[in-house]
C-alpha cells in the first residue's frame, strides 16, 4: 500500500457515514444519549490528535489530559468571564494555550529524551498542571468552573444561538468533522509522510535533510493544540469544567481509543471512541468501576490485540483473500 497515493474516495465516504450517523442521534434518542453522542464526537478528536503524534511521529504521551484540560479551562474561563469575546476567538485562544504547553513540554523533553523519559515527563508536567489548576482561585480551585453556557456565535448579519435545542450538538458534530478532516490532511500529506520516515528510521531521515527534532516538536504542538480545541468544545457541552480533566488517569482515554480501534489506522481512534462510548452506555449503572474498566480494557488490548479492532479485521481480511485467491488462479 503506497503512502504516496492517497485516496480521498475511501476516507471521505467513511467520514460522511460517521457524520450522518451522528446527525441522526437527536432524532431517535433521548437527551442522555445525545449528550453521550457529543462526548463521543469530542473523544474521536481527542483520540486522533493523540494518535497523530503517536502513530506518525512515535511520540508516546501520558499527559494529553493536560492539553484537554487547558483547552477546557481556557474556554470555560473566557466564556464565563469574558463573554464579549467571539466564540471563535475563544476557541483559538484555547488551541493556542494547548500549543504553548505542548511546546514547553516538547522543548523540555523531546530533544535528548528517549521514549521512556518522554513518557515520564509528560506525566510529570501533567501532574503539575493538575496541581496548579486545583490551586488557582480564578479557575475555581477544586470545584472548577460552573455555568459555562453555550455561546451565541455572531456572524454579523445573523446570530447562531448555540444554547437553543440541539444547536450545540450540531456544532460539535460540524467542528469535530472539520478537525478530523484537518488531521487527515496532516496524516496523509507530505508532512505525515516525513513523520512516518522519522519514526521508521530517524538516522536515515536526518540524512535526507529532515530536522527530526523540529518535526517531532511540530507534531506534538499540533497534537496538543487540537486536543486543547477538543477540550474547549467540550466545556460548554458539559457546562462545567473540573480538575479531574487534568488527572493522569484521564490521559489513558486517548490511549485506549487508539489501541482499541487500532493505531495504524487513521480512523482507529474513532472506532475506539465509539466502542468505548457504547461500553460506557451499557455499563452506566455500575459507576464505581470505571478505572478498573478502562485500565483493564487497555491492558487486555495491549496484551492480546495490540493492533486493535481494525488491525484484527485487516488481518482477517488478508487471510480471507489469501485463502480464496489460489482458487481463483486455478480457475483462470
Amino acid at each position, binding site marked *: 500500500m503506497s503512502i504516496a497515493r492517497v485516496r*480521498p474516495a475511501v476516507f471521505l465516504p467513511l467520514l460522511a457515514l460517521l457524520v450522518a450517523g451522528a446527525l441522526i442521534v437527536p432524532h431517535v434518542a433521548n437527551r442522555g444519549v445525545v449528550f453521550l453522542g457529543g462526548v463521543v464526537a469530542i473523544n474521536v478528536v481527542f483520540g486522533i490528535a493523540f494518535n497523530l503524534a503517536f502513530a506518525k511521529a512515535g511520540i508516546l504521551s501520558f499527559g494529553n489530559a493536560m492539553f484537554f484540560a487547558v483547552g477546557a479551562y481556557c474556554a470555560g474561563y473566557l466564556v464565563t468571564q469574558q463573554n464579549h469575546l467571539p466564540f471563535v476567538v475563544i476557541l483559538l485562544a484555547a488551541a493556542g494555550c494547548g500549543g504553548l504547553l505542548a511546546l514547553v513540554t516538547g522543548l523540555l523533553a523531546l530533544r535528548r529524551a528517549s521514549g521512556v523519559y518522554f513518557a515520564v515527563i509528560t506525566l510529570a508536567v501533567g501532574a503539575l498542571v493538575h496541581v496548579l489548576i486545583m490551586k488557582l482561585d480564578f479557575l475555581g480551585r477544586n470545584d472548577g468552573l460552573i455555568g459555562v453556557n453555550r455561546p451565541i456565535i455572531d456572524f454579523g448579519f445573523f446570530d447562531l444561538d448555540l444554547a437553543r435545542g440541539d444547536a450545540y450538538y450540531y456544532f460539535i458534530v460540524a467542528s469535530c468533522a472539520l478537525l478530523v478532516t484537518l488531521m487527515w*490532511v496532516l496524516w496523509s500529506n*507530505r508532512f505525515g*509522510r516525513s513523520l512516518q520516515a522519522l519514526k521508521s*528510521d530517524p538516522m*536515515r531521515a536526518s540524512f*535526507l535533510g529532515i530536522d527530526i527534532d523540529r518535526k517531532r516538536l511540530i507534531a506534538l504542538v499540533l497534537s496538543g493544540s487540537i486536543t486543547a480545541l477538543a477540550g474547549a468544545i467540550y466545556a460548554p457541552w458539559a457546562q462545567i469544567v473540573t480538575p479531574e480533566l487534568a488527572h493522569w488517569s484521564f490521559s489513558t482515554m486517548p490511549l485506549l481509543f487508539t489501541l482499541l480501534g487500532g493505531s495504524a489506522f487513521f480512523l482507529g481512534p474513532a472506532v475506539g471512541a465509539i466502542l468505548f462510548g457504547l461500553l460506557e452506555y451499557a455499563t452506566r449503572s455500575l459507576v464505581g468501576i470505571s478505572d478498573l474498566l478502562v485500565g483493564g480494557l487497555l491492558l487486555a488490548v495491549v496484551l492480546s490485540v495490540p493492533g486493535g479492532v481494525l488491525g484484527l479485521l485487516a488481518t482477517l481480511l488478508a487471510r480471507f483473500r489469501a485463502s480464496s485467491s489460489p482458487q481463483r488462479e486455478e480457475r483462470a
Partner: protein
Amino acid sequence: MSTPLLAARGIVKDYGRIKVLKNVDLDLGAGERHVVIGPNGAGKTTLFKVLSGETRPSAGTIRLEGRDVTQEAGFVRTRSGVGRSFQVARVFLEMTALDNVIVAVEAREATKRPWAGLLRLSAAKSVADEATSLLVALGLGAQQETPADTLSHGDRKRLELAMNLALRPKLLMLDEPTAGMSPTDRQAAVNLIDRVVRDNGLSLLLTEHDMGVVFQLGTRISVLHYGEVVVSGLPAEVRANALVREIYLGRNAGHA
C-alpha cells in the same frame, strides 16, 4: 588552488580516554573521488561519522566549500549538498521502494520551499515521476511497489543510493559500499557507482577495504593508520609507497 569542496583540518575525536582520531587532515576537490583506506580500527568509520555530521569532532575544523560546518548537525550538512550511505543500508523498511524515494524527493523540495504543497495529499506527479526514473536508472524499476523490508541486501543499497541521488547532492559519502558483497556483485556495484558519479557530476568520498574497488574508483587515496593520515596522494603513488606496503602487507598479506 581553488577552494576544496570538503576540507578537514586537525580532526581529533576522543571517546572518553580512547583517542580514535588523533590529527586528521583531508582535502577533497570538486570532481574528485577520494578513497580512505586503512586497517581495521584505524578510525575510518569514526572519520566518516565526523565528516558527515553524525558526531562532532573533539577538535578541528571541517569546511564545506569554504564554509565552517564543524558544529552543524548532520541534517544541515545534508541540506548543503552532502549525501551519505551507511555500511548497512538504511532505508524506510515499512515503505515501498517508490515511497522511499518519494520521501527523499519531498524532503529535498521541502528544504527549498517548506510551506508549499501541504494541502496536496498524494505526492505530486512530478515528484512521483522523478522517483520512478531514479529507481529505473538504478535498476529497481520492477521493484517500485515492493516493500523495502523484502528487498535483498544489494537492492537496498541501490535504493539507498537512489534516495541519496534524489537529494541532488554535490558530494556523495559512501561508507564501505561493497561490504559483504560477492565478487560479481562487487563489480556491478563499482560500475554503478562509477556511472552514477559520472552522470550526475558528483564528487565522491568513500571508505573501502577491497583494493580492487579502491584502485578502480579512486582518483585520490588517503591511508588512515591509528587515527592519522599517513599517506595521501594519487593511486599510483600510494600503491608504490613503502609505508603503505608495510601497513598492509606486513601483517595481513593480500587482505585489506
